[in-house]
């Protein structure tokens, strides 16, 4: 898969539009996940507009990609820059690398509800609430968790896209899940850090 991606990227850089299309189709979904993690509006129309902008930017700039192996981080940068431009145009608060996803997502379904207690999941809490728990995390955790939830990318590919060591991504996955668990079922005797103080510390 990796070799195929690099080959497609190489051909795309050389101007092969079909290769670029194939490459885009294989990666567009996680680009959408990155956008959501970074605070993109979540309604499908806004997301489609944004992805269209990113597709255009990809076509325009693909020849500036020097190393085909860097396709994923390159595409992620294009996506984040497009999101920032879009948010500026909409006069929404911008997002920072460690900011909350919710400051820009004006059409999200309300603020996340933390600390629901252990019954929240056991009683069949809906998927939206589960997602809200992820979106309430600091960016460094929510991005890897959303990318992982998509199951399109391996941990190694997520690390590559984020320009991080694999171990760091693994650590963020573990800590992110732990933070969610702590938020859902805080236990006084837990050795884990309090969710709120962890949030404050990592922001």
């Amino acid at each position, binding site marked *: 898969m990796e070799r195929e991606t690099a080959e497609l990227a190489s051909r795309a850089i050389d101007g092969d*539009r079909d290769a670029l299309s194939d490459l885009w189709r294989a990666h567009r979904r996680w680009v959408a996940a990155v956008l959501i993690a970074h605070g993109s509006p979540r309604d499908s129309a806004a997301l489609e507009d944004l992805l269209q902008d990113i597709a255009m930017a990809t076509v325009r700039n693909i020849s500036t990609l020097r190393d085909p192996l860097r396709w994923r981080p390159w595409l992620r940068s294009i996506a984040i820059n497009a999101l920032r431009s879009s948010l500026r145009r909409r006069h929404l608060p911008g997002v920072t690398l460690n900011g909350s996803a919710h400051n820009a997502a004006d059409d999200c379904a309300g603020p996340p509800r933390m600390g629901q207690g252990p019954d929240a999941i056991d009683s069949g809490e809906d998927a939206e609430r*589960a997602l809200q*728990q992820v979106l309430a995390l600091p960016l460094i955790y929510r991005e890897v968790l959303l990318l992982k*939830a998509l199951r399109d990318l391996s941990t190694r590919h997520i690390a590559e896209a984020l320009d991080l060591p694999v171990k760091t991504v*693994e650590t963020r996955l573990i800590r992110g899940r732990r933070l969610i668990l702590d938020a859902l079922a805080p236990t006084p005797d837990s050795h884990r850090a309090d969710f709120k103080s962890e949030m404050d510390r990592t922001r």
Partner: protein
Amino acid sequence: MNTHSFDIDELLCRVLEGDASADCWRELAAHAACDDRVWARVASELAQSRMIERRVHELTAPAERIEIPQPQAEPAARGGLLPIALRRRAAWSGWAVAACFLVAFVLLRPGSTAAPDRGDDLIAGETAAPMDPAAFTATEALRAYVRAGTDEGLLVGELPIVAVRTTPAAQGAGVEVVYMRRFLERTFVDDGDIVRLASDEHGRAVTLPARDESSPRRNSL
């Protein structure tokens, strides 16, 4: 005494990702033997994880409808095949130049035959050999515009770049610079196509042929 070689969180992470080996499962069972809440946690986290996956798949579904624009689907510049980004840039620069020179009294009449090879608002370089937009990046297209415009004598030059704004770059290193590029173009207008602004009896602005005047106005600096 703790004899576990894996942290419980790490084990759960592997289980959730489907990467748990037989050793991991054995280790998990050992944890569960010490703490009966472990299996409940596994169940909770699996349920949570699946719900998140389902929701993320729903939310990212619109991405499946977005395709890379194909060359024939890209809007070509009117009267030419320059990429739209270049056209916007060139069109803007044309207006900037027009503003600089304040050619207020000389207007091209709509549908006039002025500069018949180019049309009223075509930009320098558009009459160059047809170009495939798919083959150009913005930088390459701009370069092609400058080359073609210079060859045709329609592009006089470029004014100094003006920095508009600098902000810290998205990735935290370096700065993003927004700047203005200004191109100086020229066009040729037949005497018969030069008009002047005047007012009718109701005070409304009208254009009149400049050549009707005893001394026709010329656009000049």
